[in-house]
């Protein structure tokens, strides 16, 4: 047992070191002094209050999508459709705000309604993927991808069509909401304490759910062996469906926060790739909810901090993405190597 822990750690650290090494080579090839480049990422992420705030802004939705991935993965499902679920959350939240924008309701109530609508939108979209899987036999990966495209198409239709800015036809987005309906943020920033608190609560909830509840245990049983779970009396498809719903709700919440807290309008690509990024985080932490918060934070910091590399060394803006993909790839490879190693011994 103890020996295994060290072996595991060894492989993980090895993968990280290798990722760092390759990144360093890339930096050298791009003509950036590696050490200074890493320092500039750090300062870009933590060098000022404003930068840390930017990291936290990215962290919040990433936590939500990671939480969603953890739930669906526990149920043995690859919810690739989180981008679409997030988009639908954004659409529903926007719709709700537009509906009540001129109503004589207290703004706080409208904001809450908007958030709830976002949750509902994401859940509905996930339920569609779940229904396709459960009743239509469509693999959730294909279903999710398809629904992602539909969600994008729907956004574009709304942005250029019924919800366009008066006199404008641009993918820059819909008419911004009245400022009273923006998610309250820390003065002068786009950081909503609410969104941060909710995200942290959600990831804590997921940790507890998977760690200490009958629901979580049964979900895991369904994920690892649905036939056995069925024979043990777990209503398997209902659990799969519920996992989809929960994941969709988290993604929808993230989408709602994107429109209400960050952009204050609906625009194409509102999901910003957070769904896929969440999948990467979940893979990197080997689906252990405990590590979601720090690793998502690391990703958020990388994303924010690496902007400095562009400014200083004129590196391509895809650098942070490459680094993240590399990290996940190597950790997965390391995991494979570890399992081979353990089998041999």
């Amino acid at each position, binding site marked *: 047992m103890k020996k295994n822990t060290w072996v595991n750690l060894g492989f993980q650290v090895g993968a990280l070191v290798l990722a760092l090494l390759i990144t360093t080579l890339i930096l050298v090839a791009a003509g950036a002094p590696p050490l200074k480049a890493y320092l500039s990422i750090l300062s870009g992420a933590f*060098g000022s*209050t404003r930068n840390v705030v930017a990291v936290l802004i990215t962290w919040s939705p990433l936590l939500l999508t990671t939480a969603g991935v953890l739930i669906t993965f526990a149920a043995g499902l690859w919810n690739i459709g989180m981008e679409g679920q997030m988009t639908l959350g954004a659409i529903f939240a926007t719709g709700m705000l537009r509906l009540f924008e001129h109503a004589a309701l207290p703004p706080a109530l409208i904001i809450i309604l908007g958030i709830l609508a976002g949750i509902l939108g994401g859940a509905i979209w996930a339920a569609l993927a779940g229904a396709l899987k459960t009743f239509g036999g469509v693999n959730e990966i294909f279903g999710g991808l398809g629904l992602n495209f539909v969600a994008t198409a729907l956004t574009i239709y709304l942005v250029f069509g019924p919800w366009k800015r008066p006199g404008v036809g*641009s993918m820059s987005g819909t008419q911004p909401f009245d400022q009273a309906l923006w998610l309250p943020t820390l003065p*002068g920033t786009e950081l909503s304490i609410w969104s941060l608190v909710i995200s942290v609560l959600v990831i804590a909830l997921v940790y507890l759910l998977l760690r200490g509840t009958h629901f979580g245990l049964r979900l895991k049983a369904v994920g690892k062996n649905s036939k056995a779970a069925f024979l043990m009396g777990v209503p398997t498809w209902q659990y799969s469906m519920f996992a989809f719903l929960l994941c969709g709700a988290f993604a929808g919440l993230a989408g709602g926060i994107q429109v209400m807290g960050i952009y204050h309008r609906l625009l194409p690509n509102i999901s910003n790739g957070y769904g896929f990024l969440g999948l990467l985080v979940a893979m990197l932490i080997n689906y252990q909810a405990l590590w979601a918060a720090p690793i998502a934070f690391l990703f958020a910091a990388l*994303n924010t901090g690496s*902007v400095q590399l562009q400014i200083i060394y004129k590196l391509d803006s895809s650098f942070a993405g490459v680094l993240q993909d590399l990290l996940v790839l190597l950790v997965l490879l390391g995991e494979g190597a570890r399992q081979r190693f353990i089998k041999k011994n």
Partner: protein
Amino acid sequence: MRKNVMTFALLAMALVMVLSACGPTPTPVTQAPATPPPATQPPATQPPAPTATQPPAPAATAAPFVFGMLLVGPHNDQGWSQATYDGGQYVEQKIAGSKMLYLENVYSGSPAYPGQTASQLAAQLVSQGAKLVFFNSDDMKDEALKFAQANPNIYVVGVSDDWTWKDGKNYTVSANQFDVMGRMEYMKMVAGCAAALTTQTGKIGFLGPLINDETRRLAASAFLGAKYCWTNVLKKDAANLTFTVTWIGFWFNIPGVTSDPSQVADNFYNTGYDVVISGIDTTEALVQAEKAKQAGKAVWALAYDYKSNCGVAPDICLGVPYFNWGPAYLSIVKTAVDGSWTQGFQWNAPDWTNINNPDTSAVGFNKGNGLSADNSTKLDAFIAELAGGLNLWKGPLNLQDKSVYLADGAAATDLQIWYLPQLLEGMQGDSVAK
């Protein structure tokens, strides 16, 4: 098990500490007004500048003046973004010790910066020492204003915006902001004229970006130029001239989101349109024209934005109406450096003595190899007419829905042109998004 709980608790604690340490705590401003406070200062604690005429503190002249630029596309896109980037380089050359930083591909929902808005990215430039930030696109219009208001100690230039135009519809007091635009309308007229002189089929296509005030007035200008040269130079019947605008939805192609400009251009060339005027940031109209020409079609295109844009496909290029941002940027940055900054707005005209003078003309027109010598002469004559005071924005002009835009003999005001509500009668295509 217990170990895990402990680890979690420790992490949670660490997190709480990070959060509490980094939360923006209001710290009193102690800096002397002569030195701009560092960018990390929480903006909320800064009182907004009391009046529009009171500029932020001038930057210390001894240190190199750093300015930043947010580009909507790549800095080498041979179009809009490269033109503004060149403007920045012009400033670097003219002001000793000045230095430009930039970030590219900055637009709403850009996958390059997940979750980061233009104002956050501007802050990243500021953290590298930028004292002035150019927001180079209409897409960042709201962000520019938001950033300017949140960072009164940083100068903001809104390229193509109208926040600081006193007569404009959106005038806002924002002491540290300056908006600038070139009068591209003239050069679009020239482009329209070149198209009308060249077309064999009488069908001109306009490859439009998104629909807004700016793009409507530019498309309309191209139409006015085309109509004038068609009827007055070629003496042909206006009824035989077709001028169609097709919008793609954004300044450039975003796969899966906008219409594909290559397809739109192909569509023009395949349906009898033999000249396409590009209104987008990138070069698809030229590239597709070159392909169509190689397939045996007699087609031409007009480029846009960047002075050397014809280089993409010189033989079919009739010319390029382009922005020359250098002089305007230089004058604005200078006021920031020497402390004479005021909130302001410029809509800069060409230098009619030489529209291609890099030091004086805000917009220009470079002729392409595709333009015949005869047409070149006619075009020069048209440019001379414009320089001499020819005004095509003059009544009688109706809007697309046949409502009167300008009564007979009435000349359009700047306001009427800037905020053109629809395309003009005689143009085909959407005035507003469907």
